[in-house]
């Protein structure tokens, strides 16, 4: 009787620990990817804001140099993983936010040129 009781207790502890480890791993995975995505979203938001400011300056005829680099947090740095560049197009410029070769966000700005 005592032996059976001890066996059941060990099984219960093992089961609880197993479930706890599985749940904590799953939760950690969820929290980690959520946190990572949230950080990326904040960085994207900051970079979009910078792009908007530059776009408005360009539309208002200001001479703005566009060759900006952002780090993983969306802060302006010398050499970051995100790059904001401009490509001359008919009548204006196209602003491009790039990550390596991938274009994340791009839109054209009319700067007063003729079609």
């Amino acid at each position, binding site marked *: 009787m005592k032996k059976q009781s001890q066996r059941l207790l060990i099984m219960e502890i093992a089961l609880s620990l197993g479930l706890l480890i599985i749940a904590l791993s799953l*939760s950690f*995975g*969820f929290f980690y990817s*959520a946190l990572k995505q949230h950080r990326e979203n904040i960085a994207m*938001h900051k970079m*979009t804001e910078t792009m908007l400011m530059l776009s*408005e300056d360009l539309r208002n005829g200001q001479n703005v140099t566009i060759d900006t680099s952002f780090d993983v947090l969306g802060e302006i740095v010398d050499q970051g993983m995100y790059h904001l560049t401009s490509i001359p197009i008919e009548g204006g410029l196209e602003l491009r936010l790039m990550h390596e070769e991938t274009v994340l966000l791009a839109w054209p700005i009319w700067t007063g040129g*003729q*079609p």
Partner: protein
Amino acid sequence: MKKRFFLFGVPTLFTVFVILMVLSFASLAYLNVSQETKAMARGNVVLTESYTLLYEGQMKLEELQKDLDAGMRIADWVKLHNLDYNRLEQRVKLEMNTISLGLKMTIEIKQGPEGMKLKVLEHRLVNGIDQDYSQNGNPVFGG
């Protein structure tokens, strides 16, 4: 009295409760961020399309003005660009669309000493269900 044994005692039930709580919070955090990402993507599409429409609109306006400056007759000009022209009001209506947004422009043709000049009277940025994104008739470019 015979003692009964259960596999799921109070500690196991408590562990299961803790597990469910932690998993629920983790799932909620994940769902919240995935909705945030979707909202941001949607915002960026609206932003990109509004700037694209502004650019296309300005280019079209420049093109129309260029043809008028070249001395084109109004009738030919209207026919060439397939415009919605109101002769009495001397106004032209233009409409441009992207996947989710549209730009409606009302342009006035003004006769001046240097020829005919186009003046934009109204910009209206609308979405597919005709919801207006404008403020007092002027588009809110850049959200």
